């Protein structure tokens, strides 16, 4: 079952905490709930930011994609203009693609660790204003139920809906 990441914007810590508690009571394991807010967020009361802590995953995937693309491109160029004494086959092109992917993944992945998650950009203003983004990974068939649960807790809560990219590799 595919999981989707739902995002809610809570006005304050108390509300975020009660949302987390209700989600847990509803049978959602705490490891699937994440909270991100101002830096002074009480760590013992709310779950951590989980995979949204930094930009590793998006940057890593970007690095692999562009690295592989660049590597394959260079491979094709080498294939066309290789000096006669070096034999380059299709294998060589694929190898260069792999080389590019690994270098790209390494480089951008490490850089991504230093940046806040790019997927949180839509919430930057909320976090700046002291509000808390609560995220929860739920199976697709439970999305409506969880949404209703959160809305029942506070009719004014800002339900941001489903974040499109689910984690490629579950944390």
């Amino acid at each position, binding site marked *: 079952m595919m999981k989707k990441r739902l995002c809610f914007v809570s006005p304050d810590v108390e509300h975020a905490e009660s949302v987390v508690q209700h989600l847990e009571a509803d049978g959602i394991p705490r*490891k699937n709930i994440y909270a991100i807010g101002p830096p002074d967020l009480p760590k013992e009361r709310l*779950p951590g930011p989980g995979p949204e*802590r930094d930009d590793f995953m998006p940057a890593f995937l970007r690095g692999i994609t562009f690295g592989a693309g660049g590597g394959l491109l260079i491979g094709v160029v080498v294939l066309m203009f290789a000096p006669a004494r070096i034999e380059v086959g299709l294998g060589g092109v694929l190898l260069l693609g792999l*080389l590019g992917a690994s*270098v790209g993944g*390494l480089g951008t*992945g490490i850089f991504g660790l230093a940046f806040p998650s790019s997927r949180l950009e839509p919430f930057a203003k909320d976090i700046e204003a002291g509000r808390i983004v609560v995220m929860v990974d739920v199976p697709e068939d439970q999305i409506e139920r969880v949404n209703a649960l959160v809305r029942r807790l506070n009719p004014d809560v800002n339900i941001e809906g489903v974040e499109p990219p689910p984690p490629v590799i579950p944390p």
Partner: protein
Amino acid sequence: MRKSAVTWRNILLLIACLLVFYLVVLTIARSLAQ
């Protein structure tokens, strides 16, 4: 606990990249040396 799970995943992915890089360089170097 979850914190370390995510961190470990990242580290393993980076190590996997390093391994692929090493193997590819090794393969290319070997074929060039022949």
